[in-house]
Every structure is written in structure tokens, then in C-alpha cells.
């Protein structure tokens, strides 16, 4: 709402101004909606189980197929489950995006097409030929998305349903429900130690190379956190807290997106070429990929163990600390770079306000299922594994498939900012150091730890 003070003094009484509640963020921020949707799905699964039902009826389970006859059979067996899952997810995501001011008339057809494409990818991944020759469905989905996104113009109605962060964070919260909290507690300190060592070194490499090439402090710091903490999310958080110029944030985002997509293929290739096991492979990806969505895509190609170690490394070791990075860099920006004595100071409250909310959902989902499983008999644990955790994993796979496709469809190279060679070189220097250190720590030094999780 816009009020024009030139018509009348709008402050003669405060009541004349529209009021905005401090709690509005709970329903108009995408990060919070990932929590609501993720936890709703987990609770829905638990409630159905408690009522002697199961959420399995919402999760299609495609058998491996090798010819048209076996494909027809498995599809026929899953028609109703597929429709139920589609309706469930459509309703949840439509509610969320309507609060985010996305037109329902655009989102519904867009999400429908995304769901159909994801169904095709899941059919492909259960094809005997694909598994026999190691054709990875996540990489195929990414490649298809990249080709479509860069060859044809994506219509606005489809674009409104392409929300990479929404899908990947819901998927990560669902992944939390499948991880015992004891595992998170066990791996957390190692993930934090490893991630912090590499994040600090990578940050300073990018920062100092940027400075040596003549880039300004804020640009250098934004590039540094983009390459060392959590990609685009970090560039946005740090750019906001230290007031980086818009064009520099825009350039950093473009560089992160390009490097992140290239690294999906590069890390997948290196892991296969070096014969790295799934656990350390996930930890390496968690250390060296910049973005959650890109890392999930790479780690998914190596199975559940890689997804687990990736998530522990990235979410617990890196993402959680973006608020701390924001506070420290804002403090340095004001006191060292600006040398400003008046005006606002760096507020420590941004450590809390910039804390990624989906991490809260990830922890709650894990703690909830851990408590439930610990409080029932062994026989009931088996039922929970089959009727709650397995179907939640299945829905997670769908959320990640939406992610793989949307990464490709939203990485439209012609729409990215034109970047000069200096930030590319600075970012690249940090990325190379990061990959080498990531290999040494994840595979050589802590390889056994990540293998034995």
C-alpha cells in the first residue's frame, strides 16, 4: 500500500498508516514455508500411522521395467498413488506460493507440467537400461532442464513454478526425518570442523585474490562467502548485511550459478574417476559445492549414503553459520572499511534473523522421528520404517527431482549478468583450493569417518 504524504501529514496519528506485524515473515517468506510444508508432510505421515493407516497410498513406487509390457504394468499399479501425490503436493505448494504473491492461475499449470516432467524422469530412473549403464537420473534431469531453459523461452506460467530453493529445502527437511538425531549429533562436530577449515581458507583465498586484482572490499567479501559458505544464499545475505552494490551482488550470483552447475558435473566425474566411496563422496560434495540444490543433485547420483554425508556437511557444517558470517562481516564493514562512528551498528540479532529456517525444520523432523522410534518396540520400529520413513523418502525423491529440473530450467545463461574476468579468476582460485582441500579432508583424512557413518 502506498501513502502519499504530500496530500496530508500522514503522521498526525499513527493509526493512519497501514500496520505491519512483526510475525508477517512467518507466512510471507519462502524459507518458513519450506518448514511448514516439510513438517506437515512428516506429521501427516506420523498421524496416518498412529491412526493405523499409512502415507504409502500417496507415494507411487515404480518397479524396474525393461519393456513396454512391464512399464505399462508398473504404471497401472501406481495410477491412483501418483494422482494422490500430485494433488497433495499441488495443494501444499499452491497455498505456499499464493502467500508469496504467485498467481494461482500461473502456478497450477506450471507445477502440473513440472510434475509430469518429474514423473518422466522417475520412469526413466527405474528403466533397467539406465541403471545397467549407470545413467544417473539427476544428471539427466539437470541436462534436460538446461537444454530446455536455454533453447526455448520459458513462459511466465511455468517460470512461476520453478522455485529451486522451495523444493530443495522441503526435500532436506524430509531427509531430516529419515536421519536419526544421534547421527546428526555424532557427525555434527566433524562436519563443523571440516567445513569451517575449508570455508575460512576458501573465503580468504577469494577475498585476497579479489583485493589483489583491485576489487573493492564488499565485492570481495560477497564473492568470498558465495564461494565458501552457501552460494547464492550467502551472496544475498552478505550483500544485504554489508550493503554491497547491486551490480556486484548480481555478478556474484551469476558466477556462483555457473560454477555450481559446472561443479555438479565436475565433482561427479572426479568422484567416479578416483573411485571415491559414497560416504566420503557426499562429504566432498558438501564441502566443495556452493549451493544446496546443486550439491543435492551431485550427491543423489551416488545414493543415500552420499546424500546423508552431503547433508550433514552442508547443512550442519556450513549453512547454519551464515548469520555468524553476516554479523562478523557487517561489523568489519562498519568499523574497519567505513570507519563510521554514528548511525546503526552491526546487530548481533542477525545471527538469529539470518539463520536458515529450513534447518530448524530439518532438526525438528529428525528429533521427532528419533523420539518416536526410540519409544516403541522393535516390531513397531519395522512398521514405522515401512509405513512412515520409506514413503517420506519417496516424497523426498520427488522434491529433489523437482529440484534437478528447476536448476536446469532456471540456469538461463543469456539472462545472467555479464561478468568481467577479475571476479571469475578470484572465485575460480578459491574454488580450486576448495576442491583440493575438500578431497584431502573428506577422503584422505576423514574418509573412514564418513564411510563408517
Amino acid at each position, binding site marked *: 500500500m*502506498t501513502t502519499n504524504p504530500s496530500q496530508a*501529514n*500522514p503522521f498526525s496519528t499513527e493509526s493512519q498508516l497501514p500496520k*505491519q506485524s512483526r510475525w508477517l515473515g512467518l507466512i510471507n517468506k519462502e524459507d518458513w514455508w519450506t518448514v511448514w510444508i516439510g513438517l506437515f508432510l512428516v506429521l501427516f505421515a506420523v498421524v496416518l500411522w498412529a491412526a493405523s493407516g499409512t502415507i504409502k497410498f500417496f507415494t507411487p513406487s515404480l518397479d524396474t521395467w525393461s519393456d513396454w509390457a512391464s512399464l505399462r504394468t508398473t504404471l497401472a499399479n501406481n495410477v491412483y498413488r501418483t494422482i494422490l501425490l500430485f494433488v497433495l503436493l499441488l495443494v501444499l505448494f499452491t497455498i505456499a506460493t499464493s502467500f508469496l504473491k504467485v498467481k494461482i492461475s500461473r502456478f497450477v499449470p506450471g507445477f502440473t507440467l513440472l510434475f509430469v516432467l518429474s514423473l518422466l524422469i522417475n520412469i526413466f530412473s527405474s528403466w533397467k537400461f539406465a541403471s545397467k549403464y549407470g545413467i544417473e537420473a539427476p544428471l539427466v534431469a539437470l541436462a534436460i532442464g538446461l537444454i530446455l531453459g536455454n533453447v526455448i523461452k520459458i513462459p511466465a506460467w511455468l517460470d512461476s513454478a520453478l522455485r529451486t530453493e522451495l523444493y530443495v529445502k522441503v526435500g532436506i527437511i524430509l531427509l531430516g526425518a529419515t536421519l536419526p538425531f544421534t547421527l546428526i549429533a555424532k557427525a555434527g562436530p566433524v562436519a563443523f570442523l571440516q567445513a569451517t577449515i575449508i570455508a575460512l581458507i576458501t573465503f580468504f583465498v577469494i577475498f585476497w585474490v579479489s583485493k589483489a586484482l583491485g576489487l573493492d572490499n564488499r565485492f570481495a567479501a560477497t564473492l568470498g562467502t558465495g564461494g565458501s559458505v552457501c552460494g547464492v544464499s550467502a551472496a544475498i545475505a552478505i550483500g544485504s548485511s554489508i550493503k554491497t552494490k547491486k551490480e556486484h*551482488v*548480481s555478478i556474484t550470483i551469476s558466477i556462483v550459478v555457473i560454477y555450481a552447475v559446472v561443479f555438479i558435473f565436475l565433482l561427479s566425474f572426479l568422484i567416479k574417476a578416483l573411485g571415491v566411496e559414497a560416504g566420503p563422496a557426499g562429504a566432498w560434495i558438501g564441502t566443495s559445492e556452493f549451493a544446496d540444490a546443486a550439491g543435492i543433485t551431485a550427491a543423489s547420483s551416488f545414493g543415500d549414503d552420499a546424500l546423508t554425508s552431503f547433508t550433514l556437511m552442508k547443512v550442519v557444517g556450513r549453512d547454519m553459520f551464515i548469520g555468524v558470517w553476516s554479523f562478523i562481516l557487517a561489523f568489519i564493514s562498519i568499523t574497519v572499511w567505513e570507519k563510521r562512528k554514528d548511525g546503526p551498528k552491526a546487530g548481533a540479532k542477525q545471527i538469529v534473523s539470518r539463520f536458515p529456517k529450513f534447518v530448524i525444520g530439518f532438526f525438528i523432523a529428525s528429533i521427532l522421528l528419533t523420539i518416536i522410534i526410540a519409544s516403541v518396540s522393535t516390531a513397531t520400529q519395522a512398521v514405522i520404517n515401512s509405513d512412515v520413513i520409506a514413503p517420506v523418502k519417496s516424497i523426498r525423491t520427488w522434491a529433489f527431482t523437482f529440484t534437478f529440473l528447476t536448476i536446469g530450467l532456471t*540456469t538461463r545463461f543469456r539472462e545472467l*549478468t555479464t561478468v568481467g574476468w577479475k571476479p571469475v579468476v578470484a572465485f575460480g582460485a578459491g574454488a580450486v583450493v576448495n576442491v583440493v582441500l575438500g578431497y584431502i579432508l573428506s577422503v584422505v583424512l576423514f574418509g573412514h569417518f564418513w564411510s563408517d557413518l
Partner: protein
Amino acid sequence: MNKMQETCVQRVKVVFFHPSSKSSKGFKPHCLKLEKIYSMIHSLQKAHDDWSIYATNHQIVLETTTLDFNIISEMLEQNGFTHSDYDLRVEYERKWGML
């Protein structure tokens, strides 16, 4: 920079602390007289017509995504307002649903 190739949206909030404010944690600019706040808002509206204005508990906020924060800062300084008179907050967002 080519506008078509921007990858982020910059949301700027100019925050004034209302005189009725009883307390505020952290930074609290001078609780200005209403006339001074009105004068600043008038300057901002004269220079740019795309503002949302709203109140929170103890604050009056002007918000825009179409004027760069550096321009706002310079403009307020030229009109004799200092950093202590207001709080300028910047939040970036992805321009579209990329990773």
C-alpha cells in the same frame, strides 16, 4: 549494467523511529520530531514515487525496490540528514527461482 541481466532484486527500507517509541534494542536513532520525519519522507517522495509506507510497533518504514540505496543515502545527506536520523536497511532477493 544491463537491467535485463540483473539476477537480484534490491529491497531498501528507510526506517524512522517514531517519537512514541518507548525502547528499542540495539541501534536507536534520535527519536525525531514528527516534523523532521515528515520532512525526510517528503524529500524522498519528491525524488521517487514508488514507495510503500507502513508502521510497525515503534517504526515508520518507507520501502522500495526501484531506487538504489546509494542514491537514497546521498539524497538524504544532501538534504542535511545524517546517518543518526534514520536506519537504511538493504535486503537482496533472487530475481527468479534459481539455485
